């Protein structure tokens, strides 16, 4: 009886330690990557954001135009960031099949070298991808909408395509885990299909990446 008790204590003790060490405590759901091989090497992958459904948050200064209006309204930038050019946006990210696969942050500002945009795309099962490129000019989407007949405060619908970065104009600069050693290029296209009276944009953002293994 005594031996059984001692053995049970040892088994219980070892079982807990073994579970703490060997059990896969973190297992992210991962969908198959929708990538394709490009002719000159590397792989191409598109990420899609559907507006307004995938917008988690957005806030910017006046220079950002419509996109700078705080959504949700309570999430506006503090007063000491209200001057200058700054736009901070957060989205859910989908694959080309329409499945949500991750989240992303986009920051835009002016720099000594001109406008700049940067993306961090986190796909929990794969890692985080870093993108950076020459950013669009101030209120570029607003200007394109105005040329298409949009007037602020009035609903608009149609189909407007704005390339915030020409295809391949931005740089993929690595990231974490699966993306750690990737380099390459990306393009960013906004397709706007409607604007609500309160300025909420509807449409699609497409990030087109071409990557290859770097050093």
């Amino acid at each position: 009886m005594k031996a059984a008790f001692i053995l049970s204590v040892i088994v219980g003790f070892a079982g807990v330690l073994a579970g703490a060490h060997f059990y896969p405590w973190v297992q992210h759901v991962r969908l198959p990557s929708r990538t394709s091989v490009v002719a000159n090497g590397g792989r191409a992958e598109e990420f899609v954001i559907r507006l307004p459904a995938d917008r988690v948050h957005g806030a910017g200064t006046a220079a950002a135009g419509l996109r700078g209006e705080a959504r949700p309204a309570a999430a506006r930038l503090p007063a000491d960031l209200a001057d200058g050019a700054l736009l901070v946006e957060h989205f859910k990210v989908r694959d080309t099949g329409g499945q949500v696969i991750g989240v992303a942050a986009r920051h835009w500002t002016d720099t000594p070298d001109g406008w700049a945009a940067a993306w961090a795309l986190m796909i929990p099962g794969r890692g985080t991808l870093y993108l950076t490129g020459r950013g669009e000019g101030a209120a570029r989407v607003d200007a394109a909408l105005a040329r298409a007949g949009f007037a602020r405060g009035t609903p608009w619908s149609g189909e407007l395509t704005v390339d915030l970065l020409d295809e391949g104009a931005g740089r993929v600069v690595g990231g974490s885990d699966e993306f750690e050693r990737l380099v390459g290029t990306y393009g960013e296209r906004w397709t706007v299909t409607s604007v609500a009276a309160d300025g909420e944009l509807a449409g699609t953002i497409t990030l087109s990446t071409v990557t290859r293994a770097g050093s």
Partner: protein
Amino acid sequence: MTRGIVCLLGLALGAAAGVGVLYLNPLTEPRPPTFAEADRTFSYRFPESDALLFTHEGDGRLPVLPRGAEKLWENTITGAALLAVALHDEGGKAAVATRLSRPSPRTDFLLEGALLSDDWLITVPGEGSLFVRAENNLWPVVKDGVVPVWYLKRPWRGPTEYRPTEGPHPAGVAVVRGASGRFAGIEGTAVERYELERFGASGPEALTGELRLRLPQSLTVAEQQ
């Protein structure tokens, strides 16, 4: 029958001892790197004053800020969290940062701790942006806050300082990569520090976070490409 009860008691006792050992296990404590000097230090207050957004799955006790913000409920992003904060550097200059977090598959409650993979995108208006990749061990916060305050209903025994950074750099620090403007092509390292003043039913109720950056190595853009 009696033997079965004795075995069950033994298993329970052994398991309890195992849990106790895990709870006090020094192997899962962060091993903070020495990082006395920093080229730039950014700090923020959470949740009051500097939090622009904090969202996650939304089912736990942690709040979603601001109220009504979209939750990360899809099964492919369960466990992920988005935090956006206004930052201030040591000179008072304002910046903004997004932290994208996810539990790390390296989490191991025997040897490593509760690891979180964090990717920061930091933008200083007029200067540019940079990325910071960090692996943080939150086990001490679980041990000091989550277990006693949430589950044992004990009062918070703070304030407490945490230095959670454990990698991914071999030296146990986070990795900095410049993105644009003044930071383009820069590579460096970083560590985080938290001063947790209050921890309550909804998690951290008063916290000062600090991100200390060292940017010793400047690369040209051409070299980086």
